[in-house]
């Protein structure tokens, strides 16, 4: 059979993407992922005050704006430290930042699960469901972003983190309000997502116990398993994480061996015919995101699934929803430990450094986000934003196809490939900036 290229527009992600599928012998041989737009955020940052990045970079993306804020503030703090200024964040500031970040991840994962994944799976399997998925997604995300806004002022696009801490100064009442909103989300997770208590859910640590999960998540796992989809969508089995957080330590995992990473070996390169840059680590491609975090931190249940299904869409999807439970549990701790009488910010506003170079990393919903800022004469001379989706969605290089491309190759239909593509939680606005 002759080669054939079919172009398909993908929406219902953040922004749009176009996929050119090349078929050969009835199977997908290659996929070209194109993003149709460019804003030039990095160019806009040049020549500006380093702190302007705290307000500009969240506008890269309406969904992971908070991760951009944290990466930007960490890049400045790292730069200050490199220049010999001690930062010394209080535990309070750290907890508040981690909590708001966790909220952003939570809303993303649930929204992806209900608005992208389930409906697409139903479409692929031709199931007509009566469920109002969007309503569930909205309920959960509205609730958790309210908790986020208590500390950050608004979501999306808050800028409450500043070098040395945060600007908010919550009262105990604010913390309690956040706790009650969080508990509402835990309740939703227990009753609707898994139909089992958070405690019981977190005790599940092997594939043989997966049947304990019911609710919408249980249904999804069942659908994937009973339709022979569990092993679809495998890629290179290579994972990378750049930021230390409660979700994972920094590191890379190749098949199962984990080793250290250093952002200095991250390399960005232009791609022909696309505004989105590709990115590699020591010339190799890696997958980033919840599955990478689970693999690098050796999360028992993720490892157990990986043993059975490798880096298939089953393991990938599972790792993302599983993170919801981890985030809920950790958020409880973070809020409980906030000491409102500690200072919110420890650095003086007057402090202005004229030369520095800093790198900030953060675990965003879709994986590691890296900001690098170089400041000369008090202004940014170079700013690099390396987004998670650049790792997962690049075309690859001469030697290797990109991570998501590799996962789609071999599919027998566009519908199949399209579903695999969406398991990566695609975001075009970040990729293209």
């Amino acid at each position, binding site marked *: 059979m002759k080669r054939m290229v079919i172009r*398909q*527009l*993908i*929406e*219902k992600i953040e*922004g*749009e993407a*176009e996929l050119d599928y090349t078929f050969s012998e009835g199977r997908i041989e290659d996929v070209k992922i194109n993003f*149709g*737009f*460019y*804003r*030039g955020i990095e*160019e*806009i940052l040049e*020549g500006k*005050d380093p*702190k*302007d990045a*705290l*307000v*500009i970079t969240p*506008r*890269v*993306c*309406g969904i992971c*704006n908070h991760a951009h804020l944290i990466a930007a503030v960490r890049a400045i703090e790292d730069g200050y430290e490199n220049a010999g200024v001690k930062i010394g964040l209080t535990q309070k500031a750290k907890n508040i930042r981690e909590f708001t970040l966790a909220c952003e991840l939570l809303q993303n994962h649930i*929204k992806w699960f209900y608005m992208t994944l389930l409906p697409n799976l139903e479409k692929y399997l031709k199931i007509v469901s009566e469920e109002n998925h*969007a309503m569930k*997604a*909205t309920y959960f*995300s*509205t609730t958790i*972003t*309210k908790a986020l*806004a*208590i500390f950050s*002022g*608004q*979501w*999306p*696009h*808050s*800028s*409450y983190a500043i070098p*040395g*801490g*945060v*600007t*908010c*100064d919550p009262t105990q009442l604010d913390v309690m309000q956040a706790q009650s909103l969080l508990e509402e989300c835990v309740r939703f997770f227990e009753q609707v997502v898994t139909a089992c208590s958070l405690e019981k859910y977190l005790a599940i640590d092997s594939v043989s116990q997966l049947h304990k999960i019911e609710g919408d998540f249980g249904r999804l796992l069942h659908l994937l398993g009973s339709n022979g989809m569990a092993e679809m969508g495998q890629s290179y089995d290579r994972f990378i994480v750049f930021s230390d957080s409660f979700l994972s330590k920094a590191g890379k995992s190749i098949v199962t061996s984990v080793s250290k990473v250093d952002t200095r070996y991250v390399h960005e390169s232009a791609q022909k015919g696309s*505004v989105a840059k590709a990115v590699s680590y020591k010339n190799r491609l890696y997958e980033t995101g919840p599955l990478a975090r689970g693999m690098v931190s050796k999360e028992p249940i993720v490892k157990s699934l990986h043993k059975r299904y490798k880096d298939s869409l089953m393991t990938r999807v599972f790792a993302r929803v599983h993170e919801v439970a981890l985030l809920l549990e950790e958020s409880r701790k973070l809020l409980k430990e906030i000491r409102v009488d500690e200072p*919110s*910010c420890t*650095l*003086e*506003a*007057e402090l202005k450094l004229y030369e520095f170079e800093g790198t900030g990393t953060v675990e965003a919903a879709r994986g590691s986000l890296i900001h690098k800022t170089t400041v000369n004469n008090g202004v940014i001379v170079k700013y690099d934003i390396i987004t998670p989706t650049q790792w997962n969605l690049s075309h690859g290089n001469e030697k290797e196809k990109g991570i998501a491309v590799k996962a789609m190759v071999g599919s027998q239909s566009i519908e199949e490939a*399209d579903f695999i593509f969406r398991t990566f939680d695609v975001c075009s*606005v970040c990729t293209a900036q």
Partner: protein
Amino acid sequence: MSIDKQESVKKLFTAQSAKVETNKGDAYYNELYDRCRARLDELKKLKPLNNRMDFMQSIEEEGLERRDFLKWASATTAMLMLPASFTPLVAEAAVMMNRLPVIWIELQDCAGNSEALLRSDGPKIDDIILDIISLEFHETLMAPSGHQAEKQLEDAVEHFKGKYLLFVEGSIPQGIDGHFGTIGAKAETFIDHTLRLAKDAAAVVAVGSCATFGGIPAAAPNPTDAVGVMDVVKGKPIINIPACPANPSNMVGVLLHYVLTGSIPELDSLLRPKFAFGYRIHDNCERRAHFDAGEYVEEWGDEGAKNNFCLYKVGCKGPMTFNNCSIIRYNEAVNWPIGVGRGCIGCSEPDFWDKYAYERPMANANIKAPTGGVEKTVDEFGLGLLTAAGIGIAIHAAASAVAGKKSEEV
């Protein structure tokens, strides 16, 4: 909580100090009332465009009572600057919101306004309204995708010719002949796409700072030559709802006004609805008492910050930013930036980045004060622009002098 909020919204909008040339006289309102009545009667004859949930049913499912709904209606009537006698009409219009076809497109954006819409930051009833409007096309929210979605868009344009409201999110890049932004299998540029869809729209609503004035993409050096909708679309009514993100309450306000009257709300010279952008942040700011008393946050984390003092000296642009977020707030009225000690960045003003920029204290911002020229000091600027608050500034100047501090911004 959202319901009690309604009371305060109503109070603020009907307060004497907050009025923006409201009373247009009985004759005007009588005529408008009759016009609205006739329009609603016409709409009532039409079938709802979608079979999504029924409005009153949704209200019930949310655990709200008819009384709550009427409270909302009276607050919204006040917000739209209509006399209280319009309340029943506003309530009726809300219920008939699903008779209005809406097409929503995303251009050079970050999807933040869609996010805001999705999260429906407005009080509960605003959520429900946004849920039941007949969104004929929205990339993220609609069911179909791919070619099916493209077809749905074409069908909607054809079927609702001249009737639909076109919502645009994101700026429009003009550089390299518009090729910084393309859409669909034919790679139509954002400019062509917008012009084509605007042609048959009843009106175009630009949502968010990008779509209205270019937003962040248009910040210097504006690499893609990004502009707002009003710089490209001509010969159509355009309504700008700036801010980053735009407040869903204001989107609902515009929709409601359109359903109710069949016309767009009264706009300011920047095409922003006056009901939402007729006030400055500063006019209703919760820290205003501290401004007037000359109590300022001098640096992050200081005693002033702990006491929620005014953020003017750490760069707040509230005094020259027209927007209602000090009243409506964000995320179901939970909070807003000033509530967490981060000043206003002026995101609902044109060229907000280049002129306002958060980190730049007021004196260094490139904003022309009404007196002409860029003012140099906090006190001069304050006196030039904020006559009503002059006393506070004077107190502040005196206090600064006593403390031996320069009253100039550094």
